[in-house]
Protein backbone atom coordinates (compact mmCIF):
# COMPACT_ATOMS: atom_id res chain seq x y z
CA UNK A 1 0.00 0.00 0.00
CA UNK A 2 2.80 2.40 0.91
CA UNK A 3 4.52 1.77 -2.44
CA UNK A 4 1.31 2.48 -4.33
CA UNK A 5 0.70 5.72 -2.43
CA UNK A 6 4.32 6.82 -2.74
CA UNK A 7 4.22 6.28 -6.51
CA UNK A 8 0.96 8.21 -6.95
CA UNK A 9 2.19 11.02 -4.67
CA UNK A 10 5.56 11.27 -6.43
CA UNK A 11 3.90 11.45 -9.85
CA UNK A 12 1.38 14.01 -8.66
CA UNK A 13 4.01 16.31 -7.15
CA UNK A 14 6.62 15.63 -9.86
CA UNK A 15 9.21 14.46 -7.36
CA UNK A 16 11.33 11.33 -7.01
CA UNK A 17 9.54 8.45 -5.30
CA UNK A 18 12.56 8.01 -3.01
CA UNK A 19 11.66 11.37 -1.40
CA UNK A 20 8.43 9.89 -0.03
CA UNK A 21 8.71 8.04 3.28
CA UNK A 22 6.13 6.85 5.83
CA UNK A 23 7.14 9.75 8.05
CA UNK A 24 6.85 12.39 5.32
CA UNK A 25 4.32 15.03 6.26
CA UNK A 26 2.08 16.61 3.67
CA UNK A 27 3.52 19.98 4.63
CA UNK A 28 7.04 18.72 3.79
CA UNK A 29 5.90 17.48 0.40
CA UNK A 30 3.90 20.63 -0.40
CA UNK A 31 0.60 18.72 -0.34
CA UNK A 32 -2.33 20.89 0.81
CA UNK A 33 -5.79 19.71 1.82
CA UNK A 34 -7.11 19.75 -1.77
CA UNK A 35 -4.02 17.91 -3.05
CA UNK A 36 -4.86 15.32 -0.37
CA UNK A 37 -8.31 14.90 -1.92
CA UNK A 38 -6.76 14.47 -5.37
CA UNK A 39 -4.53 11.73 -3.98
CA UNK A 40 -7.46 10.00 -2.32
CA UNK A 41 -9.47 10.20 -5.56
CA UNK A 42 -6.60 8.63 -7.50
CA UNK A 43 -6.43 5.85 -4.91
CA UNK A 44 -10.20 5.35 -5.05
CA UNK A 45 -10.00 4.92 -8.83
CA UNK A 46 -7.04 2.55 -8.63
CA UNK A 47 -8.33 0.43 -5.79
CA UNK A 48 -12.03 0.59 -6.59
CA UNK A 49 -12.99 1.69 -3.06
CA UNK A 50 -14.63 4.76 -1.54
CA UNK A 51 -12.52 6.58 1.00
CA UNK A 52 -14.08 9.13 3.30
CA UNK A 53 -11.99 12.27 3.61
CA UNK A 54 -10.44 12.99 6.96
CA UNK A 55 -8.75 16.36 7.21
CA UNK A 56 -6.75 15.17 10.25
CA UNK A 57 -4.59 13.09 7.90
CA UNK A 58 -1.29 15.00 7.70
CA UNK A 59 1.36 12.36 6.97
CA UNK A 60 1.89 9.53 4.54
CA UNK A 61 1.57 6.99 7.36
CA UNK A 62 -1.84 8.42 8.30
CA UNK A 63 -2.94 8.27 4.66
CA UNK A 64 -1.89 4.62 4.42
CA UNK A 65 -3.96 3.89 7.55
CA UNK A 66 -7.00 5.78 6.16
CA UNK A 67 -6.87 3.82 2.91
CA UNK A 68 -6.44 0.46 4.64
CA UNK A 69 -9.43 1.18 6.88
CA UNK A 70 -11.60 1.76 3.81
CA UNK A 71 -10.98 -1.62 2.19
Amino acid sequence: MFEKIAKILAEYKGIDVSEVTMESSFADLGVDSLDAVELVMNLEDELGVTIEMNNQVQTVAELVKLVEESK
Partner: protein
Amino acid sequence: MSFTILGTGSSLPGVMVTNDDLAKIVDTSDEWITARTGIKERRVLGGRLLEELAEEAAQQALSRAGLSAGKLDYIFCTTVRGDYATPSLAGIVGGRIGAHCPAMDLNAACAGFLYALDLADAFFKSGRAKNILIVSAEAMSRLADWTDRATCVLFGDGAGAAVVSSRGSGQLLTMRLRSQPNREILWAGAPRGNCPFGGQSEERSPYLHMNGQEVYKFAVRTVMEDAEQLLEETGLTAEQVDWYVLHQANRRILDAARSRLGQPKEKFPMILGETGNMSSACIPVLLDTMARKGCLKGGQLLFMSAFGAGLVSGSCLMRL
Protein backbone atom coordinates in the same frame (compact mmCIF):
# COMPACT_ATOMS: atom_id res chain seq x y z
CA MET B 1 -36.62 22.37 -31.35
CA SER B 2 -34.29 25.30 -30.99
CA PHE B 3 -33.05 26.90 -27.78
CA THR B 4 -31.09 30.07 -28.18
CA ILE B 5 -29.49 32.55 -25.82
CA LEU B 6 -30.53 35.83 -27.42
CA GLY B 7 -28.66 38.10 -25.05
CA THR B 8 -26.78 38.15 -21.77
CA GLY B 9 -26.10 40.71 -19.07
CA SER B 10 -24.22 41.01 -15.81
CA SER B 11 -23.68 43.36 -12.92
CA LEU B 12 -21.20 43.30 -10.06
CA PRO B 13 -21.44 45.60 -7.04
CA GLY B 14 -18.86 48.34 -6.60
CA VAL B 15 -17.34 47.37 -3.24
CA MET B 16 -14.20 45.35 -3.86
CA VAL B 17 -12.62 43.18 -1.19
CA THR B 18 -9.06 42.02 -1.85
CA ASN B 19 -7.23 39.14 -0.20
CA ASP B 20 -5.19 41.70 1.73
CA ASP B 21 -8.43 43.23 3.05
CA LEU B 22 -9.44 39.77 4.28
CA ALA B 23 -6.04 39.23 5.91
CA LYS B 24 -6.86 42.23 8.12
CA ILE B 25 -10.01 40.61 9.54
CA VAL B 26 -9.22 36.88 9.63
CA ASP B 27 -6.06 34.82 9.89
CA THR B 28 -5.26 34.34 6.22
CA SER B 29 -3.02 35.70 3.49
CA ASP B 30 -3.09 36.59 -0.18
CA GLU B 31 -0.65 33.75 -0.81
CA TRP B 32 -2.82 31.13 0.93
CA ILE B 33 -6.05 32.23 -0.73
CA THR B 34 -4.51 32.47 -4.17
CA ALA B 35 -2.79 29.06 -3.97
CA ARG B 36 -5.82 27.35 -2.49
CA THR B 37 -8.57 28.93 -4.61
CA GLY B 38 -7.22 31.19 -7.38
CA ILE B 39 -9.31 34.08 -6.03
CA LYS B 40 -7.63 37.49 -5.72
CA GLU B 41 -10.61 39.75 -5.13
CA ARG B 42 -14.38 39.69 -4.94
CA ARG B 43 -17.25 42.20 -4.86
CA VAL B 44 -19.82 42.65 -2.10
CA LEU B 45 -23.15 44.46 -2.05
CA GLY B 46 -22.45 46.30 1.18
CA GLY B 47 -25.40 48.63 1.60
CA ARG B 48 -26.88 48.03 -1.85
CA LEU B 49 -29.86 45.84 -2.66
CA LEU B 50 -29.60 42.67 -4.71
CA GLU B 51 -32.67 43.71 -6.73
CA GLU B 52 -30.72 46.63 -8.18
CA LEU B 53 -27.98 44.34 -9.44
CA ALA B 54 -30.55 41.87 -10.74
CA GLU B 55 -32.35 44.61 -12.65
CA GLU B 56 -29.13 45.91 -14.21
CA ALA B 57 -28.21 42.46 -15.48
CA ALA B 58 -31.76 41.88 -16.74
CA GLN B 59 -31.90 45.20 -18.63
CA GLN B 60 -28.61 44.45 -20.36
CA ALA B 61 -29.78 41.01 -21.42
CA LEU B 62 -33.04 42.40 -22.81
CA SER B 63 -31.19 45.15 -24.64
CA ARG B 64 -28.68 42.71 -26.19
CA ALA B 65 -31.53 40.38 -27.11
CA GLY B 66 -33.38 43.23 -28.77
CA LEU B 67 -36.47 42.29 -26.77
CA SER B 68 -38.70 44.49 -24.67
CA ALA B 69 -39.75 43.35 -21.20
CA GLY B 70 -43.35 43.30 -22.37
CA LYS B 71 -42.54 40.42 -24.72
CA LEU B 72 -41.34 38.09 -21.98
CA ASP B 73 -43.45 35.01 -21.24
CA TYR B 74 -41.81 34.19 -17.92
CA ILE B 75 -39.11 35.34 -15.53
CA PHE B 76 -37.11 32.81 -13.51
CA CYS B 77 -34.78 34.17 -10.90
CA THR B 78 -32.24 31.81 -9.42
CA THR B 79 -31.11 32.85 -5.98
CA VAL B 80 -30.36 31.24 -2.63
CA ARG B 81 -31.83 34.30 -0.95
CA GLY B 82 -33.00 37.67 -2.22
CA ASP B 83 -33.46 40.88 -0.28
CA TYR B 84 -36.87 39.53 0.80
CA ALA B 85 -38.18 36.06 1.67
CA THR B 86 -41.28 37.22 -0.16
CA PRO B 87 -42.12 38.69 -2.68
CA SER B 88 -39.79 36.72 -4.91
CA LEU B 89 -36.78 38.45 -6.44
CA ALA B 90 -38.18 37.47 -9.86
CA GLY B 91 -41.42 39.30 -9.10
CA ILE B 92 -39.55 42.36 -7.88
CA VAL B 93 -37.28 42.42 -10.94
CA GLY B 94 -40.31 41.97 -13.19
CA GLY B 95 -41.85 45.03 -11.60
CA ARG B 96 -38.68 47.04 -12.06
CA ILE B 97 -38.26 46.21 -15.75
CA GLY B 98 -41.93 46.63 -16.65
CA ALA B 99 -42.70 43.00 -17.46
CA HIS B 100 -46.26 41.63 -17.22
CA CYS B 101 -45.50 37.94 -17.16
CA PRO B 102 -45.47 35.31 -14.39
CA ALA B 103 -42.32 35.29 -12.31
CA MET B 104 -40.84 32.90 -9.78
CA ASP B 105 -37.67 32.22 -7.87
CA LEU B 106 -35.82 28.96 -8.09
CA ASN B 107 -33.30 27.77 -5.52
CA ALA B 108 -31.02 25.03 -6.77
CA ALA B 109 -28.00 26.52 -5.02
CA CYS B 110 -25.02 26.98 -7.33
CA ALA B 111 -26.64 24.86 -10.05
CA GLY B 112 -29.59 27.29 -10.31
CA PHE B 113 -28.81 28.59 -13.78
CA LEU B 114 -28.63 25.07 -15.26
CA TYR B 115 -31.88 24.11 -13.55
CA ALA B 116 -33.45 27.28 -14.98
CA LEU B 117 -32.24 26.43 -18.50
CA ASP B 118 -33.85 23.02 -18.14
CA LEU B 119 -37.09 24.57 -16.93
CA ALA B 120 -37.10 27.04 -19.83
CA ASP B 121 -36.53 24.16 -22.24
CA ALA B 122 -39.53 22.33 -20.78
CA PHE B 123 -41.69 25.45 -21.17
CA PHE B 124 -40.56 25.87 -24.78
CA LYS B 125 -41.23 22.24 -25.61
CA SER B 126 -44.72 22.40 -24.08
CA GLY B 127 -45.50 25.49 -26.10
CA ARG B 128 -46.17 27.57 -22.97
CA ALA B 129 -43.47 30.12 -23.71
CA LYS B 130 -41.26 31.54 -26.43
CA ASN B 131 -39.08 34.06 -24.56
CA ILE B 132 -37.90 33.63 -20.99
CA LEU B 133 -35.67 35.84 -18.87
CA ILE B 134 -33.39 34.03 -16.45
CA VAL B 135 -31.73 36.20 -13.81
CA SER B 136 -29.23 34.68 -11.39
CA ALA B 137 -28.55 37.09 -8.54
CA GLU B 138 -26.71 36.15 -5.40
CA ALA B 139 -25.67 37.94 -2.22
CA MET B 140 -23.32 35.29 -0.85
CA SER B 141 -21.69 37.96 1.35
CA ARG B 142 -24.83 37.79 3.49
CA LEU B 143 -24.50 34.02 4.00
CA ALA B 144 -20.76 33.84 4.59
CA ASP B 145 -19.43 34.01 8.14
CA TRP B 146 -16.88 36.81 7.93
CA THR B 147 -15.16 35.57 11.07
CA ASP B 148 -14.54 32.13 9.51
CA ARG B 149 -11.38 32.18 7.40
CA ALA B 150 -12.24 28.86 5.76
CA THR B 151 -15.37 30.19 4.04
CA CYS B 152 -15.47 33.98 3.86
CA VAL B 153 -12.56 34.06 1.41
CA LEU B 154 -14.46 32.02 -1.16
CA PHE B 155 -17.59 33.99 -1.98
CA GLY B 156 -18.67 37.15 -3.75
CA ASP B 157 -21.85 38.89 -4.89
CA GLY B 158 -23.09 39.41 -8.41
CA ALA B 159 -25.90 39.02 -10.92
CA GLY B 160 -26.03 37.53 -14.40
CA ALA B 161 -28.93 37.27 -16.81
CA ALA B 162 -29.85 35.61 -20.07
CA VAL B 163 -32.84 35.95 -22.38
CA VAL B 164 -33.49 32.51 -23.85
CA SER B 165 -35.80 31.79 -26.73
CA SER B 166 -37.40 28.93 -28.61
CA ARG B 167 -36.52 30.61 -31.88
CA GLY B 168 -33.08 31.11 -33.38
CA SER B 169 -30.51 28.57 -34.44
CA GLY B 170 -29.18 27.42 -31.09
CA GLN B 171 -29.83 24.02 -29.57
CA LEU B 172 -29.88 22.52 -26.12
CA LEU B 173 -28.52 19.11 -27.05
CA THR B 174 -28.75 17.40 -23.70
CA MET B 175 -29.09 18.21 -20.02
CA ARG B 176 -28.40 16.22 -16.87
CA LEU B 177 -29.69 17.43 -13.53
CA ARG B 178 -28.98 15.49 -10.40
CA SER B 179 -29.67 15.56 -6.71
CA GLN B 180 -27.47 13.50 -4.37
CA PRO B 181 -28.72 14.44 -0.91
CA ASN B 182 -25.98 15.24 1.59
CA ARG B 183 -26.79 18.12 3.85
CA GLU B 184 -23.83 17.88 6.23
CA ILE B 185 -21.09 18.92 3.87
CA LEU B 186 -22.69 22.18 2.68
CA TRP B 187 -25.52 24.08 4.37
CA ALA B 188 -26.77 27.37 5.79
CA GLY B 189 -29.73 27.54 8.19
CA ALA B 190 -32.94 29.59 8.00
CA PRO B 191 -34.57 31.57 10.88
CA ARG B 192 -36.82 29.77 13.38
CA GLY B 193 -39.19 32.64 13.94
CA ASN B 194 -40.82 33.37 17.30
CA CYS B 195 -43.99 31.27 17.40
CA PRO B 196 -44.73 30.59 21.10
CA PHE B 197 -46.62 27.34 20.50
CA GLY B 198 -45.36 23.79 20.18
CA GLY B 199 -41.76 24.39 21.19
CA GLN B 200 -38.92 25.29 18.87
CA SER B 201 -36.68 23.26 16.60
CA GLU B 202 -32.95 23.51 17.28
CA GLU B 203 -31.35 26.76 16.21
CA ARG B 204 -29.66 26.47 12.85
CA SER B 205 -26.68 28.70 12.15
CA PRO B 206 -27.53 31.24 9.44
CA TYR B 207 -24.01 31.04 8.04
CA LEU B 208 -22.60 28.83 5.34
CA HIS B 209 -20.88 25.69 6.62
CA MET B 210 -18.77 23.63 4.28
CA ASN B 211 -16.54 20.57 4.33
CA GLY B 212 -14.10 21.79 1.69
CA GLN B 213 -12.52 18.43 0.98
CA GLU B 214 -15.79 16.54 0.49
CA VAL B 215 -17.27 19.33 -1.61
CA TYR B 216 -14.19 19.40 -3.84
CA LYS B 217 -14.41 15.64 -4.31
CA PHE B 218 -18.13 15.82 -5.16
CA ALA B 219 -17.56 18.67 -7.61
CA VAL B 220 -14.73 17.04 -9.55
CA ARG B 221 -16.39 13.62 -9.67
CA THR B 222 -19.71 15.12 -10.77
CA VAL B 223 -18.26 17.25 -13.57
CA MET B 224 -16.35 14.27 -14.91
CA GLU B 225 -19.28 11.83 -14.68
CA ASP B 226 -21.58 14.33 -16.40
CA ALA B 227 -19.06 15.20 -19.11
CA GLU B 228 -18.51 11.52 -19.91
CA GLN B 229 -22.21 10.72 -19.94
CA LEU B 230 -23.31 13.71 -22.02
CA LEU B 231 -20.53 13.29 -24.57
CA GLU B 232 -21.32 9.61 -24.93
CA GLU B 233 -25.05 10.33 -25.27
CA THR B 234 -24.51 12.83 -28.08
CA GLY B 235 -21.66 10.98 -29.76
CA LEU B 236 -19.42 14.01 -29.32
CA THR B 237 -15.88 14.17 -27.98
CA ALA B 238 -14.14 16.34 -25.41
CA GLU B 239 -12.05 17.79 -28.26
CA GLN B 240 -15.16 18.98 -30.07
CA VAL B 241 -16.27 21.08 -27.12
CA ASP B 242 -15.24 24.70 -27.73
CA TRP B 243 -15.83 26.01 -24.23
CA TYR B 244 -16.01 24.37 -20.82
CA VAL B 245 -18.16 26.85 -18.92
CA LEU B 246 -17.88 25.62 -15.35
CA HIS B 247 -19.20 26.90 -12.05
CA GLN B 248 -16.55 29.25 -10.68
CA ALA B 249 -16.19 27.82 -7.20
CA ASN B 250 -12.48 27.23 -7.02
CA ARG B 251 -9.69 27.26 -9.56
CA ARG B 252 -8.43 23.91 -8.26
CA ILE B 253 -11.72 22.27 -9.32
CA LEU B 254 -11.38 23.69 -12.82
CA ASP B 255 -7.74 22.57 -12.99
CA ALA B 256 -8.69 19.06 -11.86
CA ALA B 257 -11.45 18.81 -14.49
CA ARG B 258 -9.19 20.20 -17.19
CA SER B 259 -6.45 17.73 -16.42
CA ARG B 260 -8.86 14.78 -16.39
CA LEU B 261 -10.51 15.87 -19.65
CA GLY B 262 -7.12 16.42 -21.26
CA GLN B 263 -8.18 19.70 -22.81
CA PRO B 264 -6.26 22.98 -23.14
CA LYS B 265 -6.50 25.79 -20.60
CA GLU B 266 -7.92 28.19 -23.22
CA LYS B 267 -11.15 26.23 -23.29
CA PHE B 268 -11.76 26.86 -19.57
CA PRO B 269 -12.68 30.54 -19.21
CA MET B 270 -12.37 31.90 -15.69
CA ILE B 271 -13.56 34.99 -13.86
CA LEU B 272 -13.33 33.66 -10.33
CA GLY B 273 -10.06 35.48 -9.73
CA GLU B 274 -12.00 38.75 -9.69
CA THR B 275 -15.41 37.60 -8.53
CA GLY B 276 -15.04 34.67 -6.13
CA ASN B 277 -17.86 32.14 -6.00
CA MET B 278 -21.14 33.94 -6.76
CA SER B 279 -23.19 30.74 -6.55
CA SER B 280 -25.70 30.46 -9.43
CA ALA B 281 -24.67 33.86 -10.83
CA CYS B 282 -21.23 32.54 -11.86
CA ILE B 283 -22.22 30.91 -15.11
CA PRO B 284 -24.38 33.69 -16.58
CA VAL B 285 -21.81 36.32 -15.50
CA LEU B 286 -19.11 34.22 -17.16
CA LEU B 287 -21.20 33.83 -20.32
CA ASP B 288 -21.79 37.58 -20.44
CA THR B 289 -18.09 38.28 -19.93
CA MET B 290 -17.29 35.95 -22.83
CA ALA B 291 -20.01 37.49 -24.99
CA ARG B 292 -18.72 41.01 -24.39
CA LYS B 293 -15.22 39.89 -25.40
CA GLY B 294 -16.61 38.44 -28.62
CA CYS B 295 -15.64 34.90 -27.65
CA LEU B 296 -19.01 33.32 -28.31
CA LYS B 297 -19.94 32.52 -31.90
CA GLY B 298 -22.86 30.72 -33.50
CA GLY B 299 -22.20 27.02 -34.00
CA GLN B 300 -19.86 26.68 -31.04
CA LEU B 301 -20.33 23.76 -28.67
CA LEU B 302 -20.50 24.55 -24.97
CA PHE B 303 -20.32 22.15 -22.04
CA MET B 304 -21.73 23.90 -18.97
CA SER B 305 -21.66 22.41 -15.50
CA ALA B 306 -22.44 23.59 -11.99
CA PHE B 307 -22.66 21.87 -8.62
CA GLY B 308 -23.71 22.98 -5.17
CA ALA B 309 -25.48 22.47 -1.89
CA GLY B 310 -27.96 19.64 -1.88
CA LEU B 311 -25.96 18.21 -3.29
CA VAL B 312 -27.25 19.27 -6.67
CA SER B 313 -25.65 19.48 -10.05
CA GLY B 314 -26.62 20.42 -13.57
CA SER B 315 -24.66 19.93 -16.78
CA CYS B 316 -25.54 20.42 -20.42
CA LEU B 317 -24.20 20.44 -23.94
CA MET B 318 -25.40 23.44 -25.90
CA ARG B 319 -24.85 24.44 -29.50
CA LEU B 320 -24.84 28.24 -29.86
